[in-house]
């Protein structure tokens, strides 16, 4: 246009438009290309990652019999923010799941209480109530749409076919914060094996969680699968575990331990597989499942008989007379005695250790075992340690003691078993040279000082598991395989040779066989089983003596080695021996024919006696 003084201003106006658009394009460049964080934010908006829980592996016994299975348990979760956004029908909700309003209010308070529920957030599903059965949630399931923010999740809880082996199987419980810190796999509300097999094989049993990625709109409503399930990861079910326990025998063993305090451990000598591990008092494993778990657990923890303690691996007793087998083997191995060597016994007049049984004056090793002759084993022990006297500042004596100790520990005594799936083992104790040096001074102790050791009393301690294993080594004539529960063949290679030669075992076996035919165990012998056993009575300064019994059978081809410890039961022959023979009868013949004895033993109550 003519006469336009401001013609050039069109460039400025255009320039303003160009600059604004350029600034915006730069902003887009920075938002869309330079900044990479938005994608994750958008995903966290739109994706709802729902965990798919795998079913936990089952547990079978050695014969493939099911011991532990799963049962569904329902839990109700709430997203508080979504509940707040709507008019939540509290009354209807309470009615649907059959709780009263008061309960609802306290549960809500607990859920929102950051001290009780550290992971609380308004925006994520929080557990409102757990451990519900199908019938508890049936009504809610139908009208769930009425309660926005409320969801029902299925978890699996354990269920047990037989009320046995609680100590071995262990239990499953909710993870705590330290579990979650140690292992990222776990999230709030997850379950994991807390003890026993459940804990040892947790990684195998638990499987792998899966994820289902759902699409969620701005109001939190699910709009179907995200990208048609392209990001989903299916859950992998846990792997089943088969353990070496023999269900039927375990059941018999636990019945026999009814109303008693004690334990039974049985091992298959050839494989080291634990056939029976029972500890009493025990509980029904179902008691530690679901909503009753914490109350029942507390009850067990408060019980003065300490049922939670697995006495098979954690209780330690002096082995008493059962130790005489090893003493005899050491004497034979070290050439102190031959099968024909005889020692004298003055019966009750013997000194320094009297004999508790009446038998002939001259005793050989077989009879010594058969009659559990205390003087025989003292004299043997004395000759072993003093064979070179106390010359050179006791060095030779101590050398012999150390040698004795080495042979004893080669039977698996005095330390825990390594590389095994048996948890919570006590160490036991075989006194060391240093221990006596400290107690009595370097030259203050002689064979006579430690004479109690000769008959398995004194400072020596062993767990029932160690005793059973020691019998397995005797049954195997010189070796044992680390006791274990799993049935992997690799474990069978974990062979430990004792320091006693194979040839010395026959005479000991013979002695143990005679225990059952003529000696302390004769009352409960079952000839067809060819049982070789040894009783033991452990002095208990706090009350009635503890009864021990170790045995294996059959003599020529040992299938089972067993150790039974019954606390406050008096002589080993009285209760421990019949219980052991009954367990062996069950294992070896598949049934119990001595039903009368069985009933009698089951009904023997040794806890009340102690209470009186």
């Amino acid at each position: 246009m003519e006469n336009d003084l401001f013609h050039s201003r069109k460039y400025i106006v255009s320039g303003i438009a160009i600059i604004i658009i350029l600034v915006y394009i730069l902003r887009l460049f920075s938002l869309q290309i330079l900044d990479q964080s938005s994608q994750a934010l958008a995903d966290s908006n739109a994706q709802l990652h729902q965990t798919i829980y795998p079913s936990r592996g089952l547990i079978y016994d050695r014969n493939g019999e099911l011991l532990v299975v799963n049962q569904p348990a329902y839990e109700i979760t709430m997203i508080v923010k979504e509940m707040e956004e709507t008019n939540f029908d509290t009354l209807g909700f309470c009615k649907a799941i059959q709780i009263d309003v008061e309960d609802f209010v306290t549960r809500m308070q607990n859920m929102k209480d950051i001290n009780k529920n550290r992971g609380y957030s308004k925006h994520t599903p929080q557990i409102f109530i757990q451990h519900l059965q199908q019938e508890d949630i049936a009504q809610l399931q139908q009208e769930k749409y009425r309660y926005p923010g409320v969801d029902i999740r299925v978890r699996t809880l354990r269920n047990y076919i037989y009320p046995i082996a609680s100590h071995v199987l262990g239990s499953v419980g909710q993870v705590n914060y330290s579990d979650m810190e140690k292992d990222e796999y776990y999230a709030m509300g997850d379950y994991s094996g807390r003890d026993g097999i459940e804990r040892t094989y947790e990684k195998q049993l638990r499987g792998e969680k899966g994820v289902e990625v759902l699409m969620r709109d701005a109001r939190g409503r699910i709009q179907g699968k995200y990208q048609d399930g392209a990001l989903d990861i299916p859950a992998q079910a846990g792997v089943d575990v088969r353990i070496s326990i023999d269900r039927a025998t375990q059941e018999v063993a636990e019945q026999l331990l009814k109303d008693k305090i004690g334990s039974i451990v049985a091992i298959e000598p050839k494989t080291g597989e634990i056939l029976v591990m029972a500890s009493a008092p025990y509980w029904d494993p179902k008691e530690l499942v679901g909503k009753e778990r914490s109350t029942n657990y507390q009850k067990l923890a408060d019980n003065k008989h300490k049922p939670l303690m697995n006495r098979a691996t954690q209780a330690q007793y002096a082995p008493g007379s059962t130790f005489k087998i090893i003493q005899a083997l050491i004497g034979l191995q070290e050439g102190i005695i031959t099968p024909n060597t005889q020692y004298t016994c003055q019966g009750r007049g013997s000194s320094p250790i009297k004999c508790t049984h009446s038998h002939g004056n001259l005793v050989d090793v077989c009879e010594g075992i058969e009659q559990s002759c205390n003087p025989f084993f003292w004299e043997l022990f004395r000759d072993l340690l003093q064979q070179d006297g106390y010359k050179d500042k006791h060095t030779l004596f101590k050398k012999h003691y150390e040698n004795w100790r080495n042979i004893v520990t080669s039977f698996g005594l005095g330390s825990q078993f390594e590389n095994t799936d048996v948890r919570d083992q006590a160490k036991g104790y075989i006194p060391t040279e240093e221990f006596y040096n400290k107690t009595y001074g370097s030259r203050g102790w002689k064979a006579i000082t430690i004479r109690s050791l000769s008959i398995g009393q004194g400072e020596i301690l062993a767990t029932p598991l160690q005793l059973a294993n020691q019998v397995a080594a005797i049954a195997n004539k010189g070796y044992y395989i680390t006791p274990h529960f799993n049935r992997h063949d690799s474990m069978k290679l974990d062979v430990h040779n004792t320091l006693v030669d194979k040839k010395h075992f026959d005479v000991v076996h013979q002695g143990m066989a005679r225990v059952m035919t003529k000696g302390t165990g004769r009352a409960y012998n079952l000839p067809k089983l060819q049982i070789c056993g040894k009783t033991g009575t452990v002095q208990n300064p706090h009350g009635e003596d503890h009864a021990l019994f170790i045995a294996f059978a059959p003599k020529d081809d040992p299938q089972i080695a067993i150790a039974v410890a019954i606390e406050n039961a008096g002589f080993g022959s009285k209760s421990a021996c019949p219980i052991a023979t009954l367990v062996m009868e069950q294992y070896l013949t598949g049934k119990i024919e001595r039903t009368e004895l069985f009933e009698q033993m089951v009904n023997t109550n040794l806890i009340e006696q102690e209470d009186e």
Partner: protein
Amino acid sequence: MSKNRNLISGIDWWTILLFLMIALFGWINIYGSSYTTDQTEIWDFSHRAGKQLMWIITAVFLGTIILVIEEKAYDVLGYIFYGAMLLLLIITPILARDIKGSLSWINIGPVSLQPAEFAKCFTAIAVAKFMSRHGYSVKSIRDLFIPLVLIGIPAVIIMIAQKETGSALVFLSFLLVFYRQGMSGYILLWGLISIVLFVLVIRFGEMSIPFGVGNHGFFLSTIIIEGVVLALLIIKEKDIKTTLITAACLVATFGTGLFLQNKTFVNFNFICILSLIICVCILLFQWIKQRKNSWGWLVIFIAVESLFCQGCDFAFHKVLQPHQRTRIEVLLGMKDDPNGAGYNVNQSLIAIGSGGITGKGWTQGTQTTLKFVPEQDTDFIFCTVGEEWGFVGSAGVLILYLLLILRIIQIAERQRDRFSMIYAYCVASILLFHVTINIGMVLGLLPVIGIPLPFFSYGGSSLWGFTLLLFIMLRMDAARVKKQIV
């Protein structure tokens, strides 16, 4: 016949092409943003995309009618249109239903219309008619005052009676038209500086100065005002001597203040005011001495801006509505409120950012299809583009708008009469203002002001309003050929 041929050949088909591209891409994105898993039919008229298609078709029809109408009608009937429009704006709040606090919608049969969207067009005609009068000069106060009244009346009605602040602010875009017509550029600069000062006072107003009375907001504003004055002294007055004297006085004042700050409590508000008074004194002295009016303007500038700084703090806390205040605070990073006032913009930025270079694909944007971004097919439609078409698509849309605006400026410049030229500039300015405010808001650069993206956002009133605006200009442009012959 020849008249029709002239008309068709005179129409600027580039503009129509850009208009159609923007409108159709908008329609595609409205479908993309309102897409849900259970709705798959783009033609379904009960859905937003289907309705928008109907609006586009009727808009094209409307455009065709406008192209047929003789352009003289606007020149002749401009004020009558304007008056009728004012009447409509006034009765709207009486008839309107309250929609989210806004009283701007009236129902005509099945459709609801927003008269404010048409007000821009008729105001533009009236302003163009007045400013194209013979002998008109923006320099004359009276000649500037009347157009200001013409744009001020509808703006005030829309803001106060209809409670649509955003639509009212659009009338500020006419300042650019005045500028092109000769209004001093310093007024635009003045406006820009005022915005900067407002931001400084609000943003830093609550940050007090350690060991002294005062706040960073007023302190920084004072520095800016004095900096601008010094810059103008050098650039415009070329008076280096006065510049140096003023600068030296200011440095001495602030230096004393900072020095004393280590010793004792200092009232920095006082120091700032003192420095401004020193500036004013020097300039007044020069004004009296040299008798040059530009010195006077500088004095007025300092006085007005100083008062403005004091005033905007008051305005911010007392005049603005709480939600408007929060929007500004969130934008300036003074408040972090991702679930409240900041929610829209926050989600919008996530949507755009997650689009990446090429976007997630049409209807595949999770932020938009799952409704995380509110108002996603109207005011926040641009984030659908960002999410589903990525940088390529959203930069493309920006470039389409730039091309359209530049084309309209080009059209304006080729007009042979002032009326159509001024009108075309009005169109360009209004479009630029809408694009700037809308996309600036979506990109988190400007406060949330709810105005639509021209031709793109869902909505019949807005689309028809802009179509009316654009096609009247095209009709005028088509007629320029005829005028050439005459």
